[in-house]
C-alpha cells in the first residue's frame, strides 16, 4: 500500500520495473551460474503463489491443499491436449476450468469454515485429489505421471510463435505473468478485493455489514483455484509432463511457505519475492548439500518465530522506522525555532 495513487492504476511503476528486470533475465542468467529454465519455473510459480495469496493473504483463508488445484490444472492441460485439441489456448482454458471446477467442489464444502477447521479440511481435500491422481492409472498415469505433453505453439490469428525452447517459453510465460499481475492488482484494489480483506480482518463484522461472507469466500476460492490450475497447466507444459507429487501435502505446504517467506500477508509482491528466494535457494543449496530441506525447514522455523510477516514485512518495518526517525529528527531540528 504505497498510497492511493498506485492502487487506482492499472499498471504501476513497480510492475513496470519488475517486468523490465524479469525481461532481461535470459541475458545474464547463465553468467551467474543459473540457467533459463529456472526463470520459467520462477515465473510460473509466481503466478501460482499470487493466486494462492488471494486466498491466504487477501482473504485470510489458510489453505493447505492448494497443490490439488495446481495439479488438476497440470493434468487437465495434458488431457485436453491428448483428447480434445492440441491447441495452446484450448489447453490453457481446460486447465483454468478444471482448476476452478475443483475449487468449486471443495469450496462448496468448506467455504463456511474458518481457522483450523478450514485448514484441516483443505489438507483432507488435498489428499483426496492426490490419492486420485496416484491411483487413477488409466487417466493420470499414476506414479509414472502423464508424459509427452507438448509445448504447443502460441498462435495469435495468423501469427504463430514456437515456444518449445526455454528462452521463448520464458518470454511467453513472462507475458502471461504480466497480464495476471495486472488483473490481480486491479482485483485486490477493487471493491471486491476490499471486501475479501475485510473478511480476513473480521468475518463477523463483514457479515453484519450485509455481505454474504460465504459467497465471497466461495468465489475467491474458485478464482484462486482457477488461476492455480492455469499455473499448473503452464507448469505441465514447461515440464512436458504432469506428476502427482505437486499435489502432496509437502508441496502444498511449500506454496504456503514461499508466500509467507516473501511476506504475502502484508505485500502484493511478497509471494513473488518468496518464490524467487525459494527456487534459487533450492538450486544453490541443493547443489551443495542433499539436505536442503533441513536448512529450509530451519530457516522457516526461525522466520515464523522472529519475522512472521515475512521478508516484505521486514522491509516495510525498516521503511517505517526509517521514516519515523527522519520525522523525529525533523521535529527536533524545527523545535527550537517554533519554541
Amino acid at each position, binding site marked *: 500500500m504505497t498510497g492511493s495513487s498506485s492502487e487506482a492504476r492499472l499498471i504501476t511503476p513497480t510492475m513496470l520495473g519488475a517486468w523490465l528486470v524479469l525481461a532481461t533475465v535470459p541475458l545474464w542468467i547463465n553468467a551467474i551460474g543459473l540457467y533459463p529454465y529456472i526463470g520459467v519455473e520462477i515465473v510460473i510459480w509466481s503466478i501460482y503463489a499470487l493466486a494462492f495469496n488471494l486466498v491466504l493473504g487477501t482473504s485470510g483463508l489458510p489453505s493447505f491443499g492448494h497443490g490439488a488445484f495446481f495439479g488438476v490444472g497440470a493434468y487437465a492441460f495434458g488431457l485436453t491436449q491428448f483428447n480434445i485439441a492440441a491447441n495452446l489456448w484450448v489447453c490453457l482454458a481446460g486447465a483454468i476450468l478444471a482448476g476452478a471446477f475443483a475449487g468449486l467442489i471443495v469450496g462448496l*464444502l468448506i467455504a463456511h469454515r474458518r481457522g483450523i477447521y478450514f485448514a484441516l479440511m483443505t489438507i483432507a481435500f488435498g489428499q*483426496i485429489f492426490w490419492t486420485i491422481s496416484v491411483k487413477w492409472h488409466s487417466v493420470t498415469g499414476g506414479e509414472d505421471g502423464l508424459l509427452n505433453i507438448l509445448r504447443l505453439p502460441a498462435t495469435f490469428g495468423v501469427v504463430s510463435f514456437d515456444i518449445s525452447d526455454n528462452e521463448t517459453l520464458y518470454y511467453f510465460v513472462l507475458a502471461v505473468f504480466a497480464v495476471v499481475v495486472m488483473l490481480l492488482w486491479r482485483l485486490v484494489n477493487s471493491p471486491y478485493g476490499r471486501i475479501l480483506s475485510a473478511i480476513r480482518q473480521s468475518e463477523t463484522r463483514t457479515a453484519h455489514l450485509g455481505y454474504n461472507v460465504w459467497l465471497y469466500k466461495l468465489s475467491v476460492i474458485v478464482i484462486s483455484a482457477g488461476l492455480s490450475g492455469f499455473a499448473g497447466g503452464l507448469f505441465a507444459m514447461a515440464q512436458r509432463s504432469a506428476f502427482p507429487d505437486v499435489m502432496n501435502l509437502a508441496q502444498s*505446504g511449500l506454496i504456503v511457505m514461499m508466500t509467507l517467506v516473501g511476506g504475502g500477508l502484508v505485500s502484493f509482491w511478497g509471494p513473488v519475492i518468496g518464490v524467487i528466494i525459494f527456487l534459487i535457494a533450492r538450486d544453490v543449496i541443493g547443489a551443495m548439500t542433499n*539436505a536442503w530441506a533441513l536448512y529450509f525447514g530451519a530457516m522457516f522455523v526461525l522466520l515464523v518465530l522472529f519475522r512472521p510477516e515475512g521478508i516484505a514485512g521486514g522491509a516495510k518495518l525498516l521503511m517505517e522506522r526509517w521514516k519515523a526517525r527522519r520525522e523525529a529528527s525533523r521535529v527536533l531540528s524545527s523545535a527550537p525555532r517554533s519554541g
Partner: protein
Amino acid sequence: MFDLLPHLLNGLVLGLLLALIALGFMLIIGLMEQINLAHGSLFALGAYFALMLVGPKPPLPADLAAQWLQIPLGWRYGMALIIAPCLAGIVGIAVELCMRRTYGKDPLYGLLLTFGVALVLEEIIRLTWGTRDHVLPVPAGMSGAFLFSDLIWSRYRFYAAGMAAVAIGLVWLLIEKTPYGAMIKAGAHDSEMVRALGVNLSKLRLGVFVLGTMLAAFAGIVVAPIWGIRPHMGVDAVVPAFLIIVLGGIGSFWGAVIASLLVGLAVGISGAYASEWSLLSMYLLLVAVVSIRARGLFGKKSMLEV
C-alpha cells in the same frame, strides 16, 4: 459375510492404531488450539529411536554394543517401548518451547512453524538413518502367524492392537479420572479459569505437549513392525490423524476414538472390494460426515473458529 471377517478385523486393528496416533495430536490441538504438523515426524522419530535400541546396530561403543545385544530381544523391546518415547519427549520439549510463541495467535503460525519442524526432523532422519526401509524386530513370542478358521493371521497385529487399546485406556483414565484431566479440559475452553485455579498454564501446556509427543512416539514403535520404518512414515500417519480429528470433532476424546474405528473399518471393508482405492474411503467418509455435521461427530463450537 464370513469372507468379510478378516477385513473387519483388520479394519478394527487399523482403527485402534489410528486412534493411538491421533490421540496425542488431539490433546495438543485441544489444549493449545494449534495444529502440530510435526506430530508425524515425532511418530517416525519414536520408531527410529526404537530401532536404535532394538535393531542390530545400537549407537554405542563396540564393547558396550556387544553387551547390549546380549540382552534378550524381549527385554530390549520392552525397554524401547519406554525409553524411545522419553527420548522423543525431549525433542517434544524443544518443539514446544518454539511453539509457545504462536499460542493465542492465528492457527496459521502454529501450522507453519510445525511444518518447518517437520521438514527439519524428516531431513535429520534421512541423514541419520538413510532413506531405505528398515524393519523393527519384535520378540519371537509376538511375531509369527497362527491359523484360525482356515485363515492365516499375523500375531503381531493383535499385540499391537492390544497395546494401542491399553494406551488409549490410560489416556482416558488421565483425562476423566485425574485432576490433571480436569485442568486439561478446562484449559481447552477457558485458559482464564485455569489461571484462576492457580495452575501454571505454560507448565500444563508443556506437559501436555510432551505427553502428546510420547504418545506419538509410542504409536510409532507399535506401528513400525506393520507399516515398516522409512523417513516418509510420518506424513503417511499424520494425514489420517488430521482426518480423524476433524471427523470426530476437535477436543472430543470419544469422537477421536470412534472416528478412528470408523476410518479403520471403512478402509478395511473397502479394502475387500477395491484395495487400490481403500485409502480414498476415509476421505469420502470425512466429506460425507462433515457435510452433515459441520463440527464432526462430537465437536462443539470451538474457539478456533472465531
